[in-house]
């Protein structure tokens, strides 16, 4: 008999639990989604904000830039996130999607820059390449090195095959998989950038140009090492013949064991990335849903914390975790916009 009672009791508890679960949607915590590149910066701000104000610590989900914007643009209401982070600017199509789902007023804030570095163990020979050489070393299809007017599968085995000034050792580069924002940015900045510099690429590739410029080789020279940048860092330390592609903050954290390749004559330094002189630099952003201001407590205060000089300035605490500050004028302008909560018109994206 005892067993029956226990069984009945547990079913009852389960039923009660399901009854409690009817949506309790009022929330007082800011919900933030978006880019995994902005995540390490936004979490630091969120935690400080939680500790230093009376508001609860915002909840941050790392969904990737595209995933974040999709959730963000799904609608207005407490079940949708309030802020999304992005490691690229919102696309016009995403803006349209937001508009059609009723997310009319969106405030855009540019928070700083991040560089993509190509690094190796500091015991290895360092690399000094330009974008064209990088493209030739890593693309799936390249113009026939023996001349002729056709594209061939990448024949280069060693860096020195690409250009005699480069080290005479096999091309082995570890980088992020296609799901990663870092990979998107690398393809856009390095591969497509290098592709443009191949003089006759238009006639060689024709209308397949995008495919040719974006294709990364799959013959083992480029190794997909997973989303975890720490893994690439660890492998580089033990393997001096390989290079790795990851975000600047990982280089800074491991500056004792790693060195960065020079690209187009520029080392990835704070100044070079901030001024866009370093070719593999990108901007980081976040977007605020204006309709939620006043509904979810603390949004203006969070944005204020993020855009204060002691946070995102060159001496602010985000600089300590590897964010590269915007130039002073841009910071002032962005902070002013953010404070006034000036919504986007959509024209700035075109």
């Amino acid at each position, binding site marked *: *008999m005892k*067993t*029956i009672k226990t*069984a009945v009791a*547990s*079913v009852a*508890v*389960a039923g009660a*639990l399901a009854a*409690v*679960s009817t*949506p*309790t*949607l009022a*929330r007082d*915590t800011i*919900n933030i989604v978006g880019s*995994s590149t902005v*995540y*390490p910066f936004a*979490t*630091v701000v*969120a*935690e400080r904000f*939680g*500790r*230093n104000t009376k508001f*609860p*610590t915002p*909840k*941050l*989900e*790392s969904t990737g830039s595209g995933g974040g914007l999709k959730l963000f643009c799904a609608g207005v209401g407490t*079940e949708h996130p309030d802020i999304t982070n992005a490691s690229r600017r919102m696309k016009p199509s995403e803006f349209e999607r937001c508009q059609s789902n009723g997310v009319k007023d969106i405030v855009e804030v540019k928070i700083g820059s991040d560089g993509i570095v190509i690094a190796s163990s500091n015991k290895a020979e360092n690399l000094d390449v330009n974008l064209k050489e990088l493209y030739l070393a890593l693309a799936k299809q390249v113009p026939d090195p023996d001349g002729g007017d056709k594209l061939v599968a990448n024949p280069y085995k060693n860096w020195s095959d690409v250009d005699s000034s480069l080290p005479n050792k096999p091309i082995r580069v570890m980088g992020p998989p296609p799901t990663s924002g870092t990979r998107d940015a690398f393809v856009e900045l390095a591969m497509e950038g290098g592709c443009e510099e191949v003089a006759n690429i238009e006639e060689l590739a024709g209308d397949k140009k995008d495919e040719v410029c974006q294709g990364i080789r799959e013959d083992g020279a480029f190794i997909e090492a997973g*989303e*975890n*940048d*720490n893994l690439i860092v*660890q492998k580089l*330390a033990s393997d001096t013949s390989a290079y790795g592609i990851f*975000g600047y*903050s*990982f280089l800074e*954290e*491991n*500056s*004792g*064991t790693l060195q960065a390749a020079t690209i187009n004559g520029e080392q990835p330094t704070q100044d070079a990335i901030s001024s866009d002189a370093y070719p593999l630099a990108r901007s980081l952003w976040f977007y605020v849903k204006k309709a939620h201001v006043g509904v979810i407590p603390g949004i203006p205060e969070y944005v204020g914390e993020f855009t204060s000089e002691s946070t995102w300035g060159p001496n602010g*605490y985000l600089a*300590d*975790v*590897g964010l590269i500050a915007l130039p002073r004028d841009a910071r002032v302008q962005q902070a002013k916009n953010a404070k006034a909560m000036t919504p986007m018109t959509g024209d700035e994206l075109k």
Partner: protein
Amino acid sequence: MSNHEQAALVRQSLKRRYRKERRFRFYGILAIAIALAALVTLFADIIGKGYTGFIKTTMTLEVRFDPKTMYLEDATDKDAFSMADFKAPLLAALHDVVPEAGDSDDRDLGHLLSSYAANKVRDTLEADPSLLGKTQTMTFLVSDDVSVYVKHADDPNYSIQLSEKQQGWVDQLQERGIIQNSFNDVFFQNGDSRDPGHAGVLGAIVGSVLTMVVTLLLSFPIGVAAAIYLEEFAPQNKFTDFIEVNINNLAAVPSIIFGLLGLAVFINLFGLPRSVPLVGGLVLTLMTLPTIIISSRAAIKSVPPSIREAAEGIGASKMQVVLHHVLPLALPGMLTGSIIGMAQALGETAPLLLIGMVAFIVDVPSGFVDAATVLPVQIFLWAGSPELAFIERASAAIMVLLTFLIGMNALAIWLRRRLERRW
């Protein structure tokens, strides 16, 4: 063929057959040795990397709450309090213990302490405003750079971020006992943090417990009821065969599919909030149900028919036979199966990714609809963080998770030993 000839034939092949057996045994031992070696390597790696995660590095300072340098005349004045400088007393205390540092070294000196040290000064003063103007001995966590230097100065996997000058100060403070290592209680008292020194697993443990409670309360009764019905009451026909095949198939479905289902049904359709243990528990219930149903059916099957027949013989109804006799005897097997299913669910991350439980959550959850994360997700998040000090935190969290898993499996074995009846 005579007996003699037969015996000769057997003798001939005997040697070969013995050799065959010895070889077979050797392969078996080899397989076990490989499995054990893999296990030992795994544990050695995790423990070797992670034991330092259970050590915290602190600095003990004499902090003088000086009203002048803090710009605070009255600690009960709310407005003045919010404008006060809580870093100043820390810097003064640091200058006291590092007399050779000049005024220009303020930044380097301040960097020795965790970035939340000033918050501790503020909170202490807020709790006891009468401390203003007095001196108190306080213990602070050091910054993660100092912590890495103190713990891993000779480890080539860690790069030291401190300057030569700072290293000199830290060496000297350590010698004088001002910087000390002790057991990392913070690790078990806090939720997540971006400062490795302040990061803890309590939030994740509570999240895991809440999620598991939901899973257990739902999956055990439903699973057992389904198993009893299918085994004892359901008619044998095409339809029940079809259900059986489906349950067996469900047990082999990749767990991320259950996450997709949870996202579509619980969040998008029912409108439950994201990132909460309730939804996590529901999703894991779906995942654990087949395991529990299958093991419960096996437990019911293993109850000998003579028990049923004896009960029926003295006039018990079908219902009484099942509830009074079969169920109590099958329960230990059901519990074992459930605990193993729960242990599986405890280590799961993939389905939780889709329902938003992979998130940065600082506050320790206090209910089933509070945003929460779970232990394996916390490990995943820390393993991907750029700060080196998170590597040891991740390994330490793996040890905590393994402790829970081993505990649950041990409980299952103990229950089986203790309650199971052999026939």
